[in-house]
C-alpha cells in the first residue's frame, strides 16, 4: 500500500468522487485556479473545469447557503470553508438550515452536501484563526460531524461523506496535512459513525480523535517504555457518536482518559465521560480524566500557544494519575 500524506489522501478522495459522479462539485474561496489555501484542490480546476471547481465571492453564508440550494436540486456540492473559524459567518446556514431542513420538511427534501473545513491550532495563527470548536457542531442533531485522524480514514470517510444523503461537516486538522500513512488506492470507504481501536492495550482506555490521536499515540510509545499499555480508541465521527468500542475497551481497562484539542468545558471529553459513567458505572475503578485545551483564546506566541494546547506530557500525566 502506498504511504501518502493526509493532504494527498483527501485530494484523492475528492478527485475519485468527482470522476465517479458528475453531480459532485466543489465551491469555495480560492479553491479554483489557486488550488485551495491548503492546496487540497491543486490541479482540479484544470482537470474538471470552472463549472465544477468554483471560486466564490468571499461570502461564507452564501457558500453554505448556495450549497444547500444546489443539493436540494440533487447535485452533490462540496462547500469548502477556508477555516473552521470562518464557519461562524455561515453558522445560521449550517445549524439552522443544513441541520434542520430534512426534519422540518418531514423528509421530503434531502441535502446531500459536504462542508469541508480546516480546524485546529499549533500553527501560530492566533485566537480567531486557530480554533477547535468541533463540539459546537456536534451539538446539533441533523448534522453529521466527521474528524479523521489518519490519512486512510480521511480518504475513506470523505468518500463516504460525499456519497451520503445527509449534510456532513467534515473537519480536517491543519497540522495533520503532512502526516503520512498507508492509504488503499481506489475504492476505500470508511463508514461514518464508527469508532475504532487504533492501538490495543490493557491498562487505560484513551479516547480521542483527530489531532488528539497523534498526541495519544506518541504518549503510548513513551508509556510503553514504562510498561504501561494504553488502548487508543479513535472516535473518527463525533455525531453520530459510536460508543461501542469505547465501552468495550473501558470494561476491560476500567480506566479512561479523554484527549481532545478543543476547550475542556462542555467539550467532547465531557460527553464521553458522562456516557461512560452512565453506561459502565460498575466498571469504573478511577475518576475519568480529560486532557484538553486551556481555557484561553489561543495565543499567537509559540510558547504561549503550546502552553495552551494539549501536549504528549499531559496525556502521560493523566494516564499515570488514573492508574
Amino acid at each position, binding site marked *: 500500500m502506498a504511504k501518502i500524506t493526509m493532504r494527498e489522501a483527501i485530494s484523492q478522495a475528492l478527485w475519485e468522487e468527482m470522476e465517479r459522479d458528475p453531480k459532485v462539485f466543489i465551491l469555495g474561496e480560492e479553491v479554483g485556479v489557486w488550488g485551495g489555501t491548503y492546496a487540497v484542490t491543486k490541479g482540479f480546476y484544470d482537470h474538471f473545469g470552472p463549472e465544477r471547481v468554483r471560486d466564490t*465571492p468571499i*461570502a461564507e*453564508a452564501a457558500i453554505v447557503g*448556495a*450549497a444547500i440550494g*444546489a443539493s436540494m436540486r440533487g447535485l452533490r456540492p462540496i462547500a469548502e470553508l477556508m477555516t473552521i473559524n470562518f464557519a461562524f459567518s455561515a453558522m445560521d446556514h449550517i445549524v439552522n438550515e443544513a441541520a434542520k431542513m430534512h426534519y422540518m420538511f418531514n423528509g421530503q*427534501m434531502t441535502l446531500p452536501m459536504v462542508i469541508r473545513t480546516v480546524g485546529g491550532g499549533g500553527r501560530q495563527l492566533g485566537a480567531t484563526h486557530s480554533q477547535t470548536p468541533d463540539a459546537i457542531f456536534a451539538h446539533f442533531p*441533523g448534522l453529521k460531524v466527521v474528524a479523521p485522524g489518519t490519512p486512510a480514514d480521511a480518504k475513506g470517510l470523505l468518500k463516504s461523506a460525499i456519497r*451520503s444523503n*445527509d449534510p456532513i461537516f467534515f473537519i480536517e486538522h491543519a497540522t495533520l496535512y503532512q502526516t503520512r500513512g498507508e492509504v488503499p488506492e481506489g475504492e476505500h470507504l470508511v463508514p461514518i459513525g464508527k469508532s475504532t481501536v487504533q492501538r490495543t492495550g490493557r491498562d487505560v482506555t484513551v479516547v480521542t480523535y483527530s489531532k488528539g490521536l497523534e498526541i495519544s499515540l506518541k504518549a503510548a510509545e513513551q508509556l510503553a517504555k514504562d510498561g504501561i499499555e494504553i488502548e487508543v480508541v479513535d472516535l473518527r465521527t463525533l455525531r453520530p457518536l459510536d460508543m461501542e468500542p469505547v465501552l468495550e475497551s473501558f470494561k476491560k481497562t476500567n480506566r479512561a482518559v479523554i484527549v481532545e484539542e478543543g476547550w475542556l468545558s462542555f467539550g467532547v471529553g465531557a460527553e464521553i465521560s458522562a456516557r461512560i459513567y452512565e453506561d459502565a458505572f460498575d466498571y469504573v475503578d478511577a475518576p475519568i480524566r480529560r486532557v484538553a485545551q486551556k481555557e484561553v483564546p489561543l495565543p499567537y506566541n509559540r510558547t504561549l500557544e503550546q502552553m495552551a494546547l494539549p501536549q504528549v506530557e499531559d496525556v502521560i500525566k493523566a494516564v499515570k494519575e488514573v492508574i
Partner: protein
Amino acid sequence: MELTKEQRIEMYWMMLLARRLDERAWVLHRQGKIAFHISGIGQEAAQVGAAFALNRGEDWVTPYYRDLALMICLGYTPREFVLSLMGKQGEPSSGGRQMPSHWSLRRANAVSHSAPVATQACHAAGIALAMKMQKKDQVVLTTIGEGSTSQGEWYEAVNWAAVHQLPVIFLVENNQYAISVPQEKQMAVRSSADKACGLGLEGLTVDGTDPYKVYEVVARAAEKARSGNGPTVIEARMYRITPHSSDDDDRTYRSREEVEEHKQRDPILVVRSRLEQEGLLTPEQVEGMEARAREMVDDAVQFATQAPYPNVEEGTYPVYAEEVRHD
C-alpha cells in the same frame, strides 16, 4: 405575456381567498385555537402578480413568511394552511414540525426559510446555480421584506447571482415596516431596488398594490432570466395593514390614522372596483366569490379542527436521510 380576462379575474380570486383565510387565522388566534399567526394582509396583490408570472410547478420559489397569497397561487390549499396553523398531522410542509408560514411545499418546489431573515436569498442563488449547471429552463423567485434587505446574506446572494448571471428574481415586498422600524431607518436609498445598481444588476420599483403591473415586471424578469441574462431586483411597494404578527401591538409604533388611510387604498378594494368598472366583474359575481371563499375557509377550519395531532413518537424523526441510532 398579455393576461386574459379570465386570468385577471382568477388573480383577484386568489387575492380574495388568501385575504379571507388570513383574516380567519387572526380570529382563530384570538379564540386561542392557534399559537401564532403572521399576516400578509395588504401584500396579496404583489404576491399573486409574481406567482402568475412563473411557470408554476416547474420554477422554484424560496418565499418569506408573509406569502400566503403566493403559496395559494402555487396550489397550497386552505385546508393545508389551517392544518399548519394548528400543527396537525398530515400537514404537507412538515407534518407539524415547522412553524406556520415558514412555507415549504415539495410538490410546488417551494422551500422553507430560517428564523433569522434573508437565508432564503442564499438558497435561491444555489438553486439557480444548479439550474444553470443542469441546463434547465427554470427560474427561482425569492421574496423578502424590505427590512431584511439590510442583512448581509441578501447582499451576498444578490452579488453572487449577478456575478454568475443566475436565473433569480429577487422580489422585495416593501410593506414600509420591519416589525416597528420604518424604511427610512432601514436604508438610505428610496427603494431597495436602488441597491441593485451597486451590485451590477437591474433594479426596478413597481406599485405592489397592482397585481397586473407586478405581473408584467416579474414576467419580464423571468423571461430575461430564462434567456440567460441574469437576475433582477424588484421592489414592490405596499403597506402592511396588520401588526407584524399575533405577538405585537402596532399602536405602539404607528398611528391609527395612518393605518386607516391605507385601508382606504386596500388592494382588494381597488382591484375589485377596477374590474367592476371595466365590466369584467359584477357585484353579484363578487358576492359569489365571497360566498365561495367563506365556504372554503369554513371547510378548512372544520377539517383541520377534526384532524388528529401528530403522534408523540413522530417527533423523533426524520432527523437524517440515513438511519442514525441514538443509543
